[in-house]
């Protein structure tokens, strides 16, 4: 093997077919309102944790849907469970239970 002084860059595309969708299926089976998000960002705008950290619940929720779950475990810990997101969601997504279910999925699926 020759050292050329650089490596072949890795892809950052969301490769939907190659991704891990177990968490997404797990959540949907326990919290059906998971599917109702329209990506409006109200939750993130009001988020207490998002005020102090880079926590973005809209995006986290979306990345789980796309099967990009490698960072979910560390990111979800930033949530403070204040529940403001639940009050503002225009689609009635049970965001609080969603967070609990995500944590549950992390445990049960050993992610």
């Amino acid at each position, binding site marked *: *093997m*020759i050292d*050329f*002084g*650089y*490596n*072949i*860059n*890795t*892809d950052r595309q969301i490769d939907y077919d190659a991704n891990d969708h177990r968490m997404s299926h797990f959540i949907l089976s326990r919290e059906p309102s998971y599917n109702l998000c329209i990506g409006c960002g109200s939750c993130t705008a009001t988020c207490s944790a998002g005020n102090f950290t880079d926590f973005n619940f809209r995006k986290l929720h979306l990345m789980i849907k796309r099967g990009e779950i490698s960072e979910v475990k560390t990111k979800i810990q930033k949530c403070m469970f204040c529940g403001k997101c639940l009050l503002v969601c225009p689609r009635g997504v049970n965001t609080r239970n969603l967070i609990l279910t995500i944590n549950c999925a992390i445990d049960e699926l050993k992610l």
Partner: protein
Amino acid sequence: MKVEGKRLIWKDYQKEIAEDKFFYVRSCIRQTFFPGSEWAFLKIMKEVLGKDVYENPAHTTCTGIGYHSDIVPFDTTMTVVARQFALMTEAGYQNLVPSCITSFGLYTEVMETWKHFPEEEKKVRDYLKKATGREFEVPKNLAHASDIIYKFRKQIAAKGKYRLINKTTGEPLKVVEHIGCHYAKMFPSKGVGGAEYPYVLTGMVEDWGGEVIDYPERRHCCGFGFRQYLVKANRGFSVACSKKKFESMAPYKPDMIITNCPGCPMFLDRWQYVISEMEGKTYGEDGHGIPVFTYEEVAGLILGFDPWDLGLQLHQVPTEPLLNKIGIPYDPFKKYLGKNGEDIGIPMKPSMLNA
């Protein structure tokens, strides 16, 4: 796949290509890596097709690589382009034929800019006059050298000695065509067949007996990206782009790749070597890699030119497996000889790619 669907699109993109009297401008990259291709183009044009092709030794780079590396301002580039136009005008020609796709794209961009912003053309005329005293006419017909070979592809086939057919099986060779990004992506109507299903190389392959394969990453850039290759720190991106293409075309088991841009064949050739040395992975059969050709090389092979006159020894991925498939004779002992047949040594063998 239904080819009729593509034929409908191809019908919509038939550009005008001049018949004769061409002013030829060379390519920095083509002449550096594939000098035999430019030689073959001129030989085919002059000796096989009997065309008038003129080259003025005073023409220079169009500055394209510098321009797309953003170190050359647009005004400078437009004025250098105008100087090439002036040389063409002074020589009494109207049909400009660049060897390079970056140049072709740039000439097109400059001409289109002048159409939309006439004040830019006026400014450039003043610049050129001031710098060189020259004046110019905008080319009446601008066609890339691959457009010209496309136009005369049937004559080449008629005079050809070989076809892109597997000698043993009688089946057409499976060919991947790779079009330079700046051929039609910027101005789809300026490319034969448009930007989505360019026909310029497909037409050659079809008429020369081969079969073009359509694979998902067909339109992806080879990864040159100017600064993305020219600066060492960025080369990991460049090679990643080519790798993406190889991974995507591999399931179709292509026999060869044909290209119309000067840089792409070099990258598609060299990155196969790099991937093999970095990751131990080779594409194509028996660790040979997928041989990559310029369209001039393929035209020359069809016409029976000697593979070593065409410069196939300057490929890192060996081309012999393809020559064997078609049944083109070659003398392996002459591959690396100098101009007068002198022994100038031979390159080392790569550790992975079977040469």
